[in-house]
């Protein structure tokens, strides 16, 4: 009986499956290892992150980076200097405002975001990058400074596991604060549904970018937010402001989809202009898209 290993691996990247896995650390490991396994078999091999502390010497490399000990054992040239040069401060900013607690399926946006954050942290740690975490709603609720220490990943994962939904969101505020606090060039990953004032959000992101920070924006939206599948007339209550709108879905669907599409289009356009990577994520889609996007940005940093 034949078996499709890719399908089996992809199964572990399904958010609904991940949600049933025990601890956040185990979740992160499952996601990342599954992702990497899939990546080995994928057409993205030239983009390999199967990096090691040593790699074969290539013409043009600094000869001083050659590890002579290895040469002595193997009679081949390997470059050792790689490890130090790739170390990077990565700050993961996760939105835990009330709107992020929405989920039409098994996984809420904040849960999906936490899996994503944990996976990124795990991946960063594996790359020996320093990982920092900022959880915020209309203020910074939790902040873990970037660190590459071995026990730091555990602290990050534990924090992610214990995240609780907050109040109204104010995405730009932590962005500005982070931009002011960063001392050196680093990377910031924003995980949010971006349900805020788009212009303010854009200002915060540009502020970060202005400070030389590479920014990746993961825009999380639930399937229901993207398709508005409701049919019965309902009172729609805003999860943050408690504003109510009585609406007949059949009558307002087109207008809603046009508006939410306009928001997405706004971020796509403006962030591309600002040099910020943007990825819209449906919380029902596997997490490998997000990880792949991260690695793409990480690769640009060399």
């Amino acid at each position, binding site marked *: 009986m034949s078996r499709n290993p890719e399908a089996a691996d992809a199964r572990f990247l399904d958010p609904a499956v991940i949600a049933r896995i025990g601890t956040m650390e185990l979740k992160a490991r499952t996601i990342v290892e599954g992702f990497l396994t899939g990546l080995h078999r994928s057409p993205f091999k030239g983009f390999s992150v199967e990096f090691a502390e040593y790699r074969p010497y290539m013409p043009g490399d600094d000869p001083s980076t050659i590890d002579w000990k290895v040469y002595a054992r193997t009679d081949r040239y390997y470059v050792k200097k790689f490890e130090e040069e790739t170390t990077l401060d990565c700050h993961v900013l996760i939105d835990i405002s*009330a*709107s*992020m607690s*929405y989920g039409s399926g098994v996984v809420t*946006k904040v849960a999906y975001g936490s899996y994503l954050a944990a996976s990124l942290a795990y991946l960063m740690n594996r790359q020996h990058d320093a990982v920092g975490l900022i959880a915020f709603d209309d203020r910074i609720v939790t902040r873990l400074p970037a660190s590459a220490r071995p026990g730091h990943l555990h602290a990050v994962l534990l924090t992610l596991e214990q995240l609780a939904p907050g109040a109204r969101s104010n995405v730009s505020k932590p962005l500005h604060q982070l931009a002011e606090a960063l001392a050196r060039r680093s990377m910031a990953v924003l995980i949010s*549904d971006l*349900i805020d004032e788009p212009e303010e959000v854009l200002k915060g992101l540009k502020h970060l970018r202005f400070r030389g920070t590479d920014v990746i924006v993961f825009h999380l939206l*639930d399937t*229901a*937010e993207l398709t508005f599948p*409701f049919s*019965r*007339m*309902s*009172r*729609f*209550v*805003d*999860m*943050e*402001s408690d*504003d*109510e*709108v*009585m*609406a*007949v879905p*059949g*009558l*307002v669907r087109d*207008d*809603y989809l046009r*508006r*939410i599409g306009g*928001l997405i289009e706004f971020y796509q356009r403006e962030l591309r202009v600002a040099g910020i990577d943007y990825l819209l994520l449906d919380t029902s889609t596997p997490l490998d898209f997000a990880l792949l996007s991260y690695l793409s940005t990480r690769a640009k940093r060399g």
Partner: protein
Amino acid sequence: MFGLAFLYPAFLIGALAAAVPVLLHLLKREVAPPVRFPAVRFLTRSPVEQTRRKRLRELLLLALRVAALVLLAGAFARPYLADRLAASGGVTVVAVDTSFSLSSPGRFDRVRALAREAVDEAPAGDLVAIVSFSDDAAAVSDPSADRTAARRAIDALAPGFGATRYRAALDRAQEIIGGRRGRIVLVTDLQRTGWRAEAEGIVGEDVDVVARDVGGLPSNLGVADLVREAGRATAVIRNGGAGARQGHVRLYLNGREAARADFDAAPGSSVDVTFDVELPAAGVLRVALDDPTGFAADDARYLVLDPPAPPAVLVVAARAGQGDEAFYVQRALDATGDARRFRVVTTDGAGLLSALDEGRLGGYAAILLLATRGVDRRAGAALARYVQDGGGLLLAAGEALDAEIVVGLFSGSLSLRLDGRRTPSAVTLAPVDARHPVFRPFGALAGNLGQVRFSRVVAVTEEGWQVIARFSDGTAALVERRVGAGRAIVFASDLNYEWNDFPLHPAFVPFVHELVGYLAGRRREPSAYLVSDAPAGAAREPGVATVGDPPRTVAVNVDPRESDPTRLTPEEFEGAIRRLTRAAARRADAAVHQTESEQSYWRYGLMLMLIALAAEGLVGKRFP
């Protein structure tokens, strides 16, 4: 205003099915449940208005579904509009007895007083009508709120010469009330003779009937009958009072007193008083007595002594006048000595048709059809109607009577079949029942009919006909059939000395006389009538009158039953009313059915239901 009623109200229970969509609506009603949603800011507020529109549409759908079910149930219940006045007010009909039993001195004043009381007691808002009744009833004051007019009508009433007939009063009163709520007040002396066995009223269930008793009849003495017996006049004197009455009664001949006789009548009994005067063959008799306390109308009685006019007999032959076929018959009918028993008119087919066109056919007591020349189907239908209305028809076979034409003429009415001629070997005639009116006068001499030799006869189908006489070979010779009020007789051989030698026998003349007399018996004009049956031209009061063409003198007398003092008890009267009520309920039910059928509102109900369903489908489909 109009009142909506239903023929089958039980079907309205089906309207409860309308609760189903209402319940479903309530159970499945979307109460707009709250949905917590993060992107509410992207929802426009305009849908609130559209939400209201949706609710309105839902209510419209619900209303249409409910309307469809209610209309369906309503259509099955067969609605109709009752009379406008039935819903608003009633009618009080005061029926006043004007029979001659109320004509004794001072008695009718009591009648008027009771009638006025009935008018005064009529419920406010009711219309009041006044009806006078005896043999028949007439409205003397139509339904009106004007009580004064009603009282004036009562004051103008007076007793007549008729007899009490409650049914006539109730029929007329019910006719006035119609389908409305009503009350009938009969002001009467409650005479038992007012009810007839065949009486059937039309009093509706919503109609109250009240009798206002004028009181018992006074001591009355009257002439109950006057007859001629053995050349003498005999009067029947009836004493309706509680005490013995003695007196004398006078006999008048042609207006002049001819005799006087005493009588002594015990209470509640009748005595015959015979006048010792030989009566002439013609003239008018009147007997009279004096009764100052009783009714004047029955104090005299009339009798016409004139012999009745001979009945007219129409003989249809091949030729008018003395046709060959009618020769022996006409001679036989004329052979009656001094007094002609029949007035014979001989004609042909054309004469029959002209008599028919001129409406003279009914004037003949009997028609003898001896020839079919010139007689068409229209004449056949007219003859059938003539028999139906009480005429007598004789069909005698013969050379001039075409069997096929006869069968065709009466195929739809008399079911007569003549199966062609046959020539037996000299048969004779014998009555089946010697007691039949045609043969009864022959008595023991009926056997003489057996001497007649019949050489040719026709076969007459016996089915549906009564055989009066047979030929000696067993076939039918004389058959009779009663049709409506008249009768038809078929003789299977001729009366013209061609197929037999009957006209040469002594029995021929009495046979023809008895046969035609039997047929014409039902059309014999009487010489005495009751007031209620007085013929046209005679006043509806006791006396003598000349009527008809040719003119004849007839006597008109009051109905002697009206002198009967026997009265009903209130219970008996109410019992009779209940019977009438049951009969009226059936009639009212039939009337309601007819009204509903004429209005046929159920069709509109079903049409509206279909429209409602179509609208429901349209609204439902267009709703997102």
